């Protein structure tokens, strides 16, 4: 019963901290900033806690506010995606090689070079597994715009990956030839 649901702040932080932090990090590319954003989002949740009607409502609200606060932070910083990734590697010691898949690491790097709207659509689509309709509701954008951003973002990412990941392609071809 949805009406029986009572929001438990600590439990909501437990359940959704990875989601909020990941959204903020992928949108800003800055781990420290993402942590600050995540804290702010949960503090805002605390103020709005009585208005949360269901667990799904709380999750939707957290996604929406995390994306919105990340966009605000990006506008304040006016930093481009490539620079953000360089900052991510240099300041936080994150190496591409540490990730499980070289292609995955490179894709994540390339993602930060996409325009913000396309990056937001792709992050919500592939991190959060949302449908275009859910993405439109989350970022409060027209469905047609979201679909367009998804298509263009994916196309651009694929093109960047094709040109930047020659080594990966070669390895795949070699593996395919075996």
């Amino acid at each position, binding site marked *: 019963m949805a009406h029986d649901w009572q929001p438990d702040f600590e439990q909501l932080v437990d359940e959704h901290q990875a989601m909020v932090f990941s959204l903020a990090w992928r949108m800003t590319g800055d781990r420290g900033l993402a942590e600050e954003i995540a804290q702010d989002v949960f503090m805002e949740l605390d103020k709005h806690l009585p208005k949360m009607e269901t667990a799904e409502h709380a999750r939707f609200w957290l996604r929406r506010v995390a994306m919105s606060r990340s966009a605000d932070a990006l506008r304040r910083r006016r930093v481009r995606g490539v620079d953000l990734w360089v900052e991510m590697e240099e300041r936080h010691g994150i190496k591409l090689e540490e990730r499980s898949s070289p292609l995955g690491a490179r894709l994540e790097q390339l*993602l930060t070079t996409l325009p913000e709207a396309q990056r937001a659509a*792709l992050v919500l689509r592939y991190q959060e597994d949302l449908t275009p309709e859910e993405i439109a509701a989350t970022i409060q954008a027209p469905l047609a715009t979201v679909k367009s951003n998804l298509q263009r973002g994916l196309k651009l990412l694929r093109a960047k990956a094709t040109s930047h990941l020659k080594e990966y392609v070669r390895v795949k071809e070699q593996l395919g030839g075996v």
Partner: protein
Amino acid sequence: MDEFEQELRQAMERRPAPPGLKRKVMERRRRAPRPQGNALWWQRLAATVVLAAAVGGAVEWDAHIREERQRGEAAREQVLTALRITGHALNQMNAKLAAHGRAQE
């Protein structure tokens, strides 16, 4: 979903939150000022008092203006009465003077 999208989905798995995130949030929550029940009650009372004073002041001011207008009307009436009496007295005086002039002729 093609292979590229599968890779993308794997690359975009949620990252674990920093270990201290929850603790920091809970600490900030404890430190954050919270509106108390009593404080809210006092705020509401103060707002009611201010509103009542404003309404009372407006009513009082309206009554004051009305009273001033009534006093003005009464004073005007008194002046008009005095003018009528004076006019009447002057007319009588003129009539007496005219009668006296005719008697001397």
